């Protein structure tokens, strides 16, 4: 009976950390708190003499599940934006990921990029820029669901899609075409006036043959918030 009090004090830490875990809204913070919960749970199990359960909790519950979930959250909470490569890079035909820090701050695209990043940050999403060599490759990447959104300037819009030419007299310089309805709802009204947002339905935008609806990235983005 004399050793009961510290058992109670330690076991009381378990609902405390569990309450912290379920009140987190940021998924990455929740992962770290899950690690704390796993450490406290391993302590409680070892305290009750279940050494094997404590070891399993520390190895699987804390190490493996947190790492796997961190990779899963990192690759699903992301918006891929296809952009045209600058003239110097355009000789290499392959898509290539640009580090965001390389973008010049004084460039006219900077306010649009920061507005994008800010409005995506409310939903704990990241922005990833993928460069393509030509406007045709950009459109193909959108229709084959390689990217979620493509970034065009007005004259490229005219070149590639003559059907949308009446929109060319308006002020926006950049046009962002997205194929995900939920991204369109999130970004609507958040962009500066130099950019306009257009929702394109991938099923009727071109005559390309598409694979049957796998919807992996679509579903993860739509249900994430």
């Amino acid at each position: 009976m004399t050793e009961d009090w510290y058992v109670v004090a330690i076991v009381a830490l378990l609902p405390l950390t569990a309450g912290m875990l379920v009140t987190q809204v940021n998924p990455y913070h929740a992962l770290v708190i899950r690690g704390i919960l796993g450490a406290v749970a391993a302590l409680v199990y070892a305290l009750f003499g279940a050494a094997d359960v404590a070891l399993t909790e520390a190895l699987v519950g804390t190490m493996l599940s947190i790492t796997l979930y961190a990779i899963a959250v990192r690759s699903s909470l992301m918006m891929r934006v296809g952009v045209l490569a600058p003239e110097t890079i355009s000789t290499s035909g392959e898509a290539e990921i640009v580090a965001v820090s390389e973008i010049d701050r004084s460039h006219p695209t900077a306010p649009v990029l920061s507005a994008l990043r800010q409005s995506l940050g409310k939903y704990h999403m990241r922005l990833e820029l993928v460069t393509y060599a030509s406007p045709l490759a950009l459109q193909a990447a959108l229709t084959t669901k390689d990217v979620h959104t493509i970034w065009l300037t007005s004259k490229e819009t005219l070149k590639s899609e003559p059907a949308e030419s009446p929109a060319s007299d308006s002020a926006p310089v950049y046009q962002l075409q997205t194929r995900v309805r939920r991204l369109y709802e999130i970004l609507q009204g958040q962009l500066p006036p130099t950019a306009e947002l257009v929702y394109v339905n991938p099923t009727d935008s071109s005559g390309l043959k598409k694979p049957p609806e796998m919807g992996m990235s679509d579903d993860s983005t739509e249900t994430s918030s």
Partner: protein
Amino acid sequence: MMNAILITMILALLLPIYEAWQDDNIWQKMLAFASIATKTSILILVVAVLRDDWTIGVVGVLILSVGNAALMLLAHVLRRLNEL
């Protein structure tokens, strides 16, 4: 004497839990996680010595050494997240 050590350790365990709760920076939370992971495994070792139970002691040593591996894996994933 052992009771005083246990009280001190449980109170010291509450400090990083509070820090992980109130700080919004992800790296501060990681630091609190590291602190809690080490403190709980040391607490397991103390309880093992207190009860003279070698099974719990071996598990405490394993958790103490492996828990930091989980921390490093998670820190690498988070660091690449901020770079991209």
